[in-house]
C-alpha cells in the first residue's frame, strides 16, 4: 500500500514531461492553497484554476438587474454573501445597499421561504447563483413556493452547468492534460457525467474530495494515468460520489429547470450551459431569461485568460498592482472563490 509519504515523495520528484492539470472548483482552489499543495509538487506538475467560481462567471447585466430590483419600492433582494461585492456596469449590491437598496444576506435559500411568508407586503427576489451542487436547493425552494402558495418570492437565476464549460475548454483551449473534477458537483451529477468528455477528448477526469490527502491522491492518479498513456474517469471521492449521482436531486431539478444557453462573464455564450426555469414556472422568474448579451471586459483585465486556464493570476499585469480584493477590476478578484482573489490572499 502506498503511504502518503511515498506519494508526496514521488510527486515532489516527478521529472517526466510537464503536466498541466485544471481544477474547476473554487473550493478546490482554496483547498489547494490551504494545504500548501503546490509546494509539495514538482515544478513540472502545474495546477491551474478553471471556471469554477459561479459568481465570477455571472454576467454584469445580472448584477445590474439585482441592483435595479433592490431599489424598487417594497422589493428586497436576498443573496449569498459573496455576491455582494461583484460589480455590475455601475454598482455592486454592497454599493446599492449604501444608496438605499434593500439587500439581505442569507446562509441558505430555504430561509427565504419563511421570510416571504412572514412579510407578504414585500416582493422578495433570491439571487439564485451556483453550479450543480446548489441548483437542487433552488428546486427544493420552488417545491416549497408552490406547496405553500407563496406569491411574493421569485428567483433571478444564473445557474451554470459544469460539463458544457469543460467541453468549451476542451474544444477551445490547448495544453490542458487532465482535469481535477469538482467533488460535490459530482456528488449530484455522478461520475458518469464525465465519460463523454473523456471519450471525445481523451483526457483523465479525476474526481477529488477536499482534504489535502484527497487532492494529493488525485494528482498522483492523474500523473500515473498520463505516464501510462491512459485516460479514465476515476472517482476518488467514493464516500459521496457514485456513478449516477443523486437521482432524487436530478429529478427535482429537471422538474423545474431546463437547459438553456448562457453568457459566461469573460468567456462568452456557451451553448446549453445554464439551467433556467421552465416555461410553466416563468411567473416565478424575476427576469432571468432572455438576458444574453455580449459584455465588454474592463481595460487590461485578463479574467478571461484566468478563467480559461491560459494564465495564472500572477501573470495578469494588473494583479496586485492595480487589482486587489479591496479595489477589484475583474470579477475573479472580488469573489471569495475567484482564482485571483484566492491567489492574492495566499501568495
Amino acid at each position: 500500500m502506498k503511504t502518503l509519504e511515498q506519494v508526496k515523495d514521488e510527486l515532489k520528484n516527478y521529472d517526466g514531461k510537464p503536466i498541466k492539470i485544471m481544477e474547476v472548483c473554487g473550493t478546490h482552489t482554496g483547498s489547494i492553497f490551504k494545504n500548501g499543495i503546490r509546494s509539495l509538487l514538482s515544478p513540472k506538475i502545474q495546477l491551474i484554476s478553471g471556471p469554477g467560481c459561479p459568481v465570477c462567471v455571472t454576467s454584469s447585466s445580472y448584477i445590474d438587474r439585482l441592483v435595479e430590483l433592490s431599489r424598487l419600492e417594497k422589493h428586497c433582494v436576498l443573496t449569498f454573501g459573496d455576491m455582494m461585492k461583484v460589480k455590475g456596469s455601475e454598482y455592486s449590491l454592497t454599493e446599492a445597499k449604501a444608496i438605499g437598496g434593500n439587500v439581505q444576506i442569507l446562509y441558505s435559500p430555504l430561509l427565504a421561504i419563511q421570510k416571504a411568508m412572514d412579510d407578504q407586503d414585500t416582493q422578495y427576489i433570491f439571487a439564485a447563483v451556483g453550479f450543480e451542487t446548489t441548483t437542487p436547493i433552488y428546486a427544493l425552494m420552488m417545491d416549497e413556493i408552490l406547496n405553500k402558495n407563496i406569491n411574493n418570492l421569485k428567483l433571478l437565476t444564473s445557474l451554470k452547468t459544469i460539463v458544457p464549460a469543460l467541453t468549451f475548454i476542451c474544444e477551445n483551449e490547448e495544453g490542458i492534460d487532465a482535469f481535477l473534477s469538482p467533488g460535490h458537483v459530482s456528488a449530484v451529477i455522478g461520475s458518469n457525467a464525465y465519460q463523454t468528455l473523456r471519450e471525445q477528448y481523451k483526457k483523465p477526469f479525476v474526481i477529488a474530495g477536499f482534504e489535502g490527502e484527497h487532492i494529493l491522491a488525485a494528482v498522483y492518479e492523474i500523473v500515473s494515468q498520463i505516464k501510462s498513456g491512459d485516460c479514465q474517469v476515476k472517482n476518488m471521492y467514493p464516500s459521496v460520489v457514485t456513478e449516477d449521482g443523486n437521482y432524487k436531486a436530478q429529478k427535482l431539478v429537471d422538474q423545474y429547470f431546463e437547459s438553456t444557453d448562457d453568457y459566461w462573464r469573460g468567456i462568452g455564450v456557451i451553448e446549453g450551459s445554464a439551467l433556467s426555469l421552465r416555461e410553466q414556472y416563468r411567473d416565478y422568474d424575476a427576469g432571468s431569461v432572455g438576458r444574453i448579451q455580449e459584455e465588454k471586459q474592463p481595460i487590461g483585465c485578463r479574467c478571461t485568460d484566468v478563467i480559461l486556464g491560459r494564465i495564472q493570476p500572477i501573470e495578469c499585469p494588473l494583479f496586485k498592482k492595480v487589482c486587489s480584493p479591496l479595489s477589484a477590476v475583474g470579477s475573479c478578484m472580488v469573489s471569495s472563490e475567484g482564482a485571483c482573489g484566492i491567489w492574492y490572499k495566499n501568495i
Partner: protein
Amino acid sequence: MKIDMSYGSGGKQTGNLINDIFLKHFDNKTLNKLEDAAVLNVSGNIAYTTDSFVVTPLFFRGGDIGKLAICGTVNDLSMMGAVPKYLTAGFIIEEGAEIETIDTIAQSMAQAAMEAGVKIVAGDTKVIEGKGGIYINTSGIGEIIKPGISISNCHEGDVIILSGYLGEHHAAILSSRMGIENSIASDCAPLSSIVKSLIDENINVRCMRDVTRGGLATVLNEAAEHSGCAIEICEEDIPVSKEVQGFCDILGLDPLYMANEGKMIAVVPVQEADKALGIIRDNKYGKNAAVIGRMMGGKGVILKTRLQGTRSIDVLYGEGLPRIC
C-alpha cells in the same frame, strides 16, 4: 420600562439614570463627585486608548456588550505593558431600549472592572432616535510598568506564544445569528493578569497584541511588517477547539481570521519561551496556550500545513461580518 428622548435631556431623568444605574454599579469616590472631569493621580508614562462597541446581540454566551467594553480597553492598555487604572464609559442609547437592559449591562461592566482592577471615573449618556440599540465607548489610562513593548520590537529567533483557542468569540456571536446550536462561548476576558505575571517574573517580552478583529493572521502580519521579520507558524500547533473547527467548516470560515476577545500573542526571546509559556498556562485565561511559531529572517507570514506544505498568510481583506464587537 423603556428609555425615551427625555432621558438624554440632561434633566431629572438623566440624573435618575446616572444615579440609579451608573453610580449604583460603578460606585467610586471620583465618579461619585460627578464633576465635569475626573481628577486623577498617575505616575510615570501612561498608556491611553479608546474603543467603541456596537455588537449585536447585546447578550451572548460568555458575555455581553458591557463586559466587552471593559475588557477590550483593559486589554489594549495591557498589551503596551501598562497596568490599567481608570476608564471612562460613554453610552449612546436608542429610544426604546429597556432600562433593565442598561442596568444588567452596567452591572456586568462593574464586575469586569472589578476583576481587572480598574475604576470607571467618568461617563456620558446620550439618547437618540432608534429602535432600542445600545452602543458603548470606553477610553482608558494605564501606568506603564514595562516600557519598550512594541510591535516593531521583535527579533529573529523570538518565539510566538498564543494564549489559547482561536475563534470562540466570533463563533459564539455568529452561532446565535445562524441558528446553530453548540456550547461555544465568547472568550471575552481581561488579559491584564497574564501580562502582569509575565512582567513581574521578568520575562523580556518584546511585543504583545490581543487578537481581535482581523484575527491572528492580521496581527502576525503587523508584527512581521513592523519588526522587519518573517514569521513561520505551524498549523498543527495552533489551538482551535473541535467545536469551533466544525463551526468554521459549516460556514467556510478560517479560524486564523476570526475575532477573539480574550486572546493574545506574546513574542519572547527563545531562551525564555518555556518559562513564559508556563506563566501563561498557570493563568485561568491561558490554560490552552501554545507556542505557535517563531520570527525569522525574510518577510511575510508562512504557515506550515498539516501535510508539511507551505502557505502564505495575508491580512484579512474586507470580509468578516458586521457587528461582532
